[in-house]
């Protein structure tokens, strides 16, 4: 998996030893694990510094600023306000800078909500009676099957939505039944997420074991 262009044998050996050291936590807490954990954090922080400067600050701020666009110096003023958080006397100013970033994010919520949810609301209105002419030629689904699936889809949406009605007490028996059904239907989603999560974690382990076997020990 590791291309020879970026990998070296000493690097692979250090990576493998570090991997085993980090895995040693599985047996029990130990000093070797702590050492490599700290090394990892240090390397990650160092890379953060490098990437922040060379990928963002230098090409987007420093180069345009020294190239003639002098208003970019104001960004330094606002950016340094973040660091007043460390000062007891001036730390309120960090909230101005944080507020600007929060404001940027909050102002976009209208576009986000419209573009994300309107198409989903529209496509939630599925036809409950599907005709064979509406089925694509290459599809294996029958009209009855599609109608049933659509009905179940709409029913599940309504039931799950009714579960989240917290603004009033659910006294009506129909709403209670719907809410209970929605709760049960959500379990299907959570079960799928649980199984998918396990699969994801296993893939990460498999990648590391393959690195140890194939790249380090040359097995397989």
């Amino acid at each position: 998996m590791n291309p020879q262009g970026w990998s070296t044998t000493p690097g692979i050996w250090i990576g493998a030893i570090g991997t085993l050291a980090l895995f040693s936590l599985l047996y029990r807490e130990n000093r070797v694990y702590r050492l490599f954990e700290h090394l990892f954090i240090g390397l990650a922080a160092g890379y953060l510094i490098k990437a922040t400067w060379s990928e963002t600050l230098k090409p987007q701020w420093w180069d345009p600023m020294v190239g003639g666009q002098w208003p970019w110096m104001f960004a330094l003023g606002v950016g340094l306000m973040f660091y007043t958080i460390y000062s007891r006397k001036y730390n309120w100013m960090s909230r101005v800078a944080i507020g600007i970033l929060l404001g940027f994010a909050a102002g976009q919520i209208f576009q986000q909500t419209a573009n994300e949810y309107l198409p989903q609301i529209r496509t939630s209105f599925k036809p409950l009676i599907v005709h064979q002419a509406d089925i694509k030629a290459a599809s294996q689904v029958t009209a009855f099957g599609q109608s049933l699936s659509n009905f179940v889809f709409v029913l599940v949406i309504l039931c799950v939505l009714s579960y989240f009605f917290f603004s009033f007490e659910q006294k009506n028996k129909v709403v209670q039944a719907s809410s209970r059904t929605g709760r049960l239907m959500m379990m299907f989603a959570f079960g799928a997420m649980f199984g998918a999560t396990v699969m994801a974690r296993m893939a990460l382990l498999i990648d590391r074991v393959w690195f140890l076997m194939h790249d380090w020990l040359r097995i397989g």
Partner: protein
Amino acid sequence: MNRLHWTQTIDRRILYLVLLALVVIGLLVPIPLPLVVGPQARALYNAVQQAPEDKLALVCTNWSASTQGENRPQTEVILRHLMHRHIRFALMAFDQQSTNLARELAEELAPQYGYVYGRDWINWGYRADVNGTLKGIVLSIPDTFKTDSQNRIPLTDLAKLPVMQGVHNTKDLSIIVEISPSGVYKAWIQFVVGSTPAKFGYGPTSVMAPELYNYIDAGQMVGMMFGIKGAAEYERLLIQDGTLKKPGFTTRAIAPVSLSLVLLFVLIGLGNYGMYATRNGRKQEKGS
């Protein structure tokens, strides 16, 4: 103590060893089992297969080494497919490690397809702010990224970057594929998808995959690869169409995934069996 009590108290280190052993066995011993290609991976494959060849494809990677087990194979199959079809592509990233990881992968694959940096592919680099960047590229890609990441050449310098010919904003893209372990796909849907005829495909880690069926149903996403399994399905399709000659690591990794899931269900079954057997044993003891 009930004789089945051990079913609930197996030492965790034994479990770890069993899991490790299954993973090693799964990687070493080829298990010839069929892999059914799912409709979502097939839909993504079809979208890339039908993407216009004369436009630039955009591959946005958002993964770091922590999820490379799933996301790297996904990125690889997409890049192979694009290069096999001779479609120019651009890389961009919202994760700092990803810009180098994706670049390294592209540099590894490019010589196999005769791809040259600047002519056939380009790396726009990393951006910290997702929303601002995506809103920017909808209007103007050169104004948002200014230069490429590797050589700092202005994106408007078509003499040195002929790959950027005819690329002004997202309307000029062939297809957009995001490979990511996080929820950045929402930003693409919120800011970009409606502004371009290019289809949007996604390569999530398995953790994210179940929540994406909603977006595929709404037509906001054309298809996706369900974690490493989806990458294996995509690889299967590439073998069928001749892009790849033989299965790679991705297909090989499915066997240990399968074995570990079987172990999971066996352990859950064992634990629950032990719980109910112990409970019944206690009831019988109380009754007698």
